[in-house]
């Protein structure tokens, strides 16, 4: 829906325009990229079903691609504009030739003919007359080209508008029709003229205007149907929406199929962040839409993946495969309403839905899973085994910590310094690009082509690099080679480790058998295995502007030696599409490794406790205070310690009888 698509080669079907997509993720199959490289939501097979008001449904199945639009204004613009999102697959089901180039031809003057006294006002005789004459016209041309075949023309798409009939037909047939201007039909001269050009190019301006108007209309629809109190977006009974009907939204299967994805795009554009969207819309209703499948509204899932409440009641879902497109979507779904659908007759649907949605608590208002279990499901514990914990960082003397802090700062600012200080003649570096990595699930709508040109020729991804010589060549050893490859990689900007720690996952364990630079230990010495996951901005070399936002994984083997006392033995870098940092957010609060002291009591309270402790232990004030201090004011613990060391304490630690009296 962006106006950007307007200026692009919309009629073309150059396969090179289809950008590479990350095709790995089967659970994202309803995200596609159209020929213009824009993201398209929704599924291509939305021919069945439809949003209510199905007066053209029969025709829809037979001629899925024909635009049968009665209202030339907005609906035409929608069809024309949104139809660009058609996949090539569905296009191929219609004859390619001229079918996409159609024209509107206006025929007037026929009302004055004798045929106008016919029951239908003469329209059928006129159409038959035009078909016959056009056939003759076209046959003449073909005969000239040495074929003798009789050309048969059928006019299937026309509408009567007062004295005029407007015929929509392929451009090739239109020229034959235009030649009939001035012909006599049942004793009346008819006038044939081109009404308007639907093929596009000269009318970009007006189309983008109508696109803007369409956006406004859809935005208004969203506003009108949003219940701020319940945070509910009510998209039920869209077929009875007077404004949508006024647009002719349901007159054509094409516009009908594209309405929902367009609505979802407009909805998505209302929010700056995924979080804002998530907090604004908790529930959606698509009830009463006469849907036989969710295909046509499937784009709801990628647009509002965090939805808590979903009402799909009173549709025509015959079985669960009708809503299959939403299986395992909506990972936070709490309540689903399914009443009034045929599949409710099937006893197993409840068990299935519980499997599909691990966080689901309520089905049709009845609690079907305990709060505790649902919470468990939301943590993904059931699906993902052990809980996700915070980083395990087993450092010694802050060696690894200091290295990491310095490393990424230097990597962003001065790679030559970095190589001189942390790498040596035996250090090894290599880069592997994962061009198909899973992307950040919360940012599906902003999927961009990745463009790996600057990395791919250095990538040592063994999955794709089979030749031994190439594998040897793309492993870089020694300062010179490593500096060369590192400086050839794009400039980067990593988030600050201290102030933006959540964007990093940094782990460190001991690694035995690390090469000993002194050569004294043939079995190697102790070092560290450091694994880092994070993200970076890629900067333009000249302008320093941010070009890309990517994620990376980096594995270091760190050992003793080098200019700083530590050196990189091994550095394996993986670069991939941005994948966010949700994955390493702990699902359970991290168990603190140090016992946490309770808040110390205030001075007055301390005084009371000390006096009590003095009485119990017999120790002097300052000794009691010290003992309590050391035990974080945990009285039983302090007492335990006191008892353990009591006999070793000097006599002066204890209160003398006189002092108590005094």
């Amino acid at each position, binding site marked *: 829906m962006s106006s950007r698509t307007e200026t692009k080669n919309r009629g073309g079907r150059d396969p090179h325009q289809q950008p590479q997509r990350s095709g*790995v993720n089967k659970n994202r199959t309803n995200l596609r990229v159209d020929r213009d490289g824009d993201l398209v939501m929704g599924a291509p097979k939305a021919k069945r079903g439809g949003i209510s008001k199905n007066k053209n449904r029969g025709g829809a199945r037979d001629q899925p691609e024909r635009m049968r639009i009665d209202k030339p204004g907005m609906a035409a613009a929608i069809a024309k504009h949104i139809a660009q999102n058609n996949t090539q697959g569905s296009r191929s089901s219609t004859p390619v030739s001229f079918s996409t180039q159609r024209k509107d031809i206006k025929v007037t003057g026929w009302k004055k003919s004798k045929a106008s006294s016919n029951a239908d006002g003469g329209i059928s005789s006129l159409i038959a007359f035009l078909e016959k004459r056009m056939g003759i016209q076209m046959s003449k041309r073909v005969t000239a080209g040495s074929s003798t075949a009789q050309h048969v023309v059928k006019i299937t798409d026309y509408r009567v508008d007062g004295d005029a009939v407007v015929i929509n037909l392929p451009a090739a047939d239109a020229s034959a029709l235009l030649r009939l201007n001035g012909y006599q039909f049942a004793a009346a001269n008819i006038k044939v003229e081109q009404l308007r050009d639907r093929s596009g190019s000269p009318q970009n301006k007006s189309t983008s205007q109508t696109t803007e108007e369409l956006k406004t209309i859809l935005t208004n629809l969203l506003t009108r149907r949003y219940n701020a109190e319940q945070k509910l977006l009510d998209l039920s009974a869209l077929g009875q929406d007077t404004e949508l009907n006024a647009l002719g939204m349901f007159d054509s299967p094409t516009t009908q199929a594209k309405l929902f994805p367009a609505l979802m795009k407009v909805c998505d554009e209302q929010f700056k962040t995924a979080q804002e969207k998530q907090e604004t819309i908790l529930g959606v209703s698509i009830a009463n839409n006469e849907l036989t499948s969710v295909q046509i509204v499937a784009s709801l899932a990628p647009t509002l993946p965090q939805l808590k409440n979903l009402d799909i009641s009173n549709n025509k879902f015959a079985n669960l495969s009708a809503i299959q497109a939403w299986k*395992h979507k909506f990972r936070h779904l709490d309540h689903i309403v399914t009443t009034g659908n045929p599949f409710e007759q099937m006893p197993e649907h409840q068990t299935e839905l519980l499997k599909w949605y691990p966080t689901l608590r309520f089905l049709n208002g009845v609690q079907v899973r305990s709060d505790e279990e649902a919470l468990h499901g939301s943590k993904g514990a059931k699906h993902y*085994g052990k*809980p996700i914990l915070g980083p395990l960082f087993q450092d010694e003397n802050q060696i690894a910590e200091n290295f990491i802090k310095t490393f990424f700062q230097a990597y962003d600012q001065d790679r030559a310094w970095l190589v001189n200080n942390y790498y040596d003649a035996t250090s090894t570096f290599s880069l*592997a690009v994962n061009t198909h990595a899973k992307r950040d699930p919360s940012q599906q709508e902003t999927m961009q082509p990745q463009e790996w040109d600057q990395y791919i020729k250095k990538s040592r991804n063994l999955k794709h690099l089979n030749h031994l010589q190439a594998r040897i060549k793309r492993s870089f050893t020694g300062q010179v080679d490593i500096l060369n490859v590192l400086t050839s990689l794009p400039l980067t900007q990593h988030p600050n480790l201290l102030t933006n720690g959540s964007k990093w996952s940094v782990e460190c364990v001991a690694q035995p058998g690390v090469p000993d630079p002194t050569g004294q230990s043939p079995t190697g010495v102790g070092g560290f295995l450091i694994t880092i996951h994070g993200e970076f901005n890629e900067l333009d070399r000249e302008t320093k502007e941010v070009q890309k936002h990517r994620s990376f*994984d980096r594995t270091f083997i760190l050992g003793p030696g080098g200019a700083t006392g530590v050196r990189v033995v091994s550095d394996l870098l993986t670069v*991939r599409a941005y994948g966010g940092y949700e*994955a390493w957010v702990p699902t359970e609060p991290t168990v603190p490794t140090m016992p946490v002291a309770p808040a110390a009591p205030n001075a007055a309270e301390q005084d009371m406790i000390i006096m009590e402790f003095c009485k119990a232990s017999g120790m002097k004030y300052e000794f009691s205070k010290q003992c309590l201090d050391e035990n974080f004011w945990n009285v039983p613990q302090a007492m335990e310690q006191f008892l353990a060391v009591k006999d070793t304490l000097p006599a002066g630690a204890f209160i003398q009888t006189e002092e108590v009296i005094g």
Partner: protein
Amino acid sequence: MSESSANDHIEILIKTATETAESFVDAYYTALQASRPTISSYYVPRETLPDGKIVPIIVWNGNSIETAAAFQEMFEKEMPFMHYEVQALDCHVMNPGDSAVDDTSKAAEKKISIIVAINGFVRLAEAREGPTKGFSESIVLAPNPEKALKGPKAATRAWLIQSQVFRYVV
């Protein structure tokens, strides 16, 4: 040692390392999916090193797993169906005797470790339609000293996991 023989030496080590990384990861991830009772056989025997460190080291999403047997049990009892799809793989050779390479290639192979970096996704719960999680894993492989070319030990694995750090990353 001449330059050309040094190059040959490096070439042999890289060949060994890359091929080992590929076949090991294949076999190991297949075991995690489909033959969980064999998981512990992919690890070095538990051992306390002279510096007091204990191998193998196994870290799974921040959980430190004490032994290979415990890791196997976690997969047998707690984990759902998991299918690993490796999308990117890379590895380095680590030779503790780096600074004085004077071994023959065969002897050197017995000393090296292989550091493997793996990137991909896991499909959970259901083979076709289960949800996926992107992952990154770093594994250090050590040669199995028990491995023999002939006899009853010929079937044992040539390489074993000494350390392993796994994370879901997407």
